[in-house]
């Protein structure tokens, strides 16, 4: 049996990578991701992995190296955050369209400016439409578990898309928590050997990667991402089920908590999902019919799963740790889109919170429940901001 240990989220990710032993890792340091690449460098220095580890001179190059390696036929991992992810932006779209199943840990941190190193989801939200899969973890255990599952989902022949394993900067990356890693052999067996598709290094059957596509082809190539995303939904479900069998930790694309007889729901991603459940328990003790929804898989967005949870509810608060100045935030938009498929949908309001690492307290979430129960609150609310 595997033994529980106490490490921070970044180290847990590095440990998962070590078990998987990717052929190439290329990265560039940025807080709060840096511990991952430092820990991994130690494994490389001690000869514990076979990985070719490339210290790129920028994130743009780091991801370009990953794309080159992946196209060449290697299993590839990288990590970044915030400005680093923004700097990769051009290559995010390229890597998705080139169908390179790169696994990237994103230690969610806000974007400058002003410069701020603390947690929010605006970095990952900027990559929302790039064609990358995005999976969010709530704690150290999930950051680790998501990483093992991510390789399986991304590399599946029906998917072949890059994936971001998102973990809240500092709150998960730097917090020491007890978690249970798999034994090395179990982890390796779960992920399995890498299967390249048309690798560049197959010099006997040369492949042209990254040609120019004119208007008569571009759209169809992009549409293939839609198909791959749709497939990813089922694949993710299967992989999570298999992982549950193996570990007893049962995950789903979207996870409801005390939702069955609930009339009011609060939807969140990342570490805040735990706080929401805590508040739900408190309010349940007071007899309030509230429940929590955690979105684990953000891209593809599990619309149908969410519809099932939202149906028949009176009101829903969607917590977004990101903003879209001028309109509602991304998670809210997706939840509203899902709810539009329901005959008489719940009233849905958006609560933007925790930007730039601002703490979110249980009392604040209680009062949000209070607002939606009483039918108060704007469509888009900025929780705790000094206006």
């Amino acid at each position, binding site marked *: 049996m595997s033994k529980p240990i106490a490490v921070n989220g970044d180290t847990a990710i590095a440990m998962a990578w070590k078990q998987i032993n990717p052929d190439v890792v290329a990265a560039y340091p940025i807080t709060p991701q840096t511990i991952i690449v430092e820990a991994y460098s130690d494994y490389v220095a001690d000869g514990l992995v076979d990985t*070719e580890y490339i210290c790129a001179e920028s994130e743009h190059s780091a991801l370009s190296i990953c794309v*080159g390696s992946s196209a060449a036929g290697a299993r590839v991992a990288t990590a970044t955050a915030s400005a680093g992810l923004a700097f990769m932006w051009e290559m995010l779209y390229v890597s998705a369209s080139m169908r390179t199943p790169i696994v990237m840990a994103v230690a969610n941190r806000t974007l400058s400016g002003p410069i701020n190193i603390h947690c929010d989801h605006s970095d990952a939200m900027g990559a929302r439409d790039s064609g990358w899969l995005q999976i969010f973890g709530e704690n150290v255990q999930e950051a680790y578990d998501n990483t093992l599952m991510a390789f399986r989902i991304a590399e599946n022949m029906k998917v072949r898309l890059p994936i971001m394993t998102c973990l809240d900067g500092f709150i998960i990356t730097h917090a020491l928590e007890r978690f249970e890693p798999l034994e090395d052999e179990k982890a390796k067996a779960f992920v399995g050997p890498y299967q390249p598709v048309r690798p560049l290094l197959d010099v006997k059957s040369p492949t042209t990667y990254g040609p120019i596509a004119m208007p008569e082809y571009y759209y169809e190539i992009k549409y293939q991402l839609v198909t791959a995303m749709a497939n990813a939904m089922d694949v993710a479900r299967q992989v999570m089920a298999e992982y549950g069998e193996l570990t007893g930790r049962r995950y789903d694309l979207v996870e409801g908590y005390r939702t069955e007889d609930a009339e009011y729901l609060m939807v969140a991603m990342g570490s805040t999902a735990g706080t929401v459940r805590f508040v739900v328990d408190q309010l349940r003790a007071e007899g309030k019919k509230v429940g929590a929804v955690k979105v684990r898989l953000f891209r593809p967005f599990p619309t149908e799963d969410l519809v099932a949870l939202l149906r028949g509810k009176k009101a829903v608060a969607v917590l977004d740790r990101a903003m879209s100045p001028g309109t509602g935030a991304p998670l809210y938009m997706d939840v509203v889109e899902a709810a539009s498929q329901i005959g008489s949908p719940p009233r849905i309001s958006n609560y933007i919170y925790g930007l730039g690492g601002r703490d979110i307290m249980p009392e604040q979430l209680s009062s949000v429940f209070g607002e939606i129960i009483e039918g108060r609150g704007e469509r888009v609310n900025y929780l705790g901001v000094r206006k």
Partner: protein
Amino acid sequence: MNLRELTHTEERLCEGHRLCAGCAEPIIARQVLMATDKPVVVANATGCFEVSTTIYPFTAWNVPWIHTAFENAPATISGVEAAYNSLKRQGKLEGEIKFVAFGGDGATYDIGLQSLSGAIERGHDFLYVCFNNEAYMNTGIQRSGATQKGASTTTCPAGSCIPGKREFPKDLTRIIIAHDIPYAAQASPHNWKDLIEKSRKGIETHGPAFINVVSPCPRGWRHDSSQTIAISKLAVETCVWPLYEYENGEWRLTGESLRIAEGSKEKRPVSEWLSSQGRFKHLTKGKFTSVADEIQANVDKKWGELLKLSKM
């Protein structure tokens, strides 16, 4: 190496591309790829050469080829080479493969300089070849850091007040040499023997190698498409584009440049170079002729430095 042998080498870049008639880029690429019969993987920066050789669903490439963006061909090939090293080390791959990256001057002197510098510093085993046509041709002849002073481009047009580009080009080859790179060279497609020999050295060098090749562009330089080779030769004969190599810390002139340095060949005036191309037309007569003198003075200064560096 003789011409007869070269005609029998494998066609790695084949017919069917859509580069302009008289474009030097495919001439250079074919010469570079003739320099080895080992398998190669090619990376390409965005630019004329990339867009014209791979218009989906067609490709003019008979070897594995990858393009990911404009500024990152060195990083992309770094990744391919890293994968190769990893898979070989793990016994998952057999056989030797060589890695070559192509980029225009825009990709190399400007937007991708950091990527190139990083890849060289990390010591990846690849040859980088710059097609230096002294402007962003693919996007319609805009100035780059390689554009010659006085040249008229669409972003530094020769007007009634300003005589084209106001700055001299940066000396990229020397910037690359300052990385203590194992092998670097300047070459020209008119001297195919010199270019192929340098390419062979670059490909066989253990670690990074860089070759900067003058690449006449009939569209942007405004010359007849039949003049490409003649003009590349003139670039060397006027010492606008000296042929040399830097190997194991030693600078060495080659081809016509060596003969000019030794005194067995005439160093032609820069005015001949300027008058061969429409982009310099405004410098040959009228109020901007002093710019031509400045260019000559700069060419002489740089040539003098090169003679010293190569101990001539």
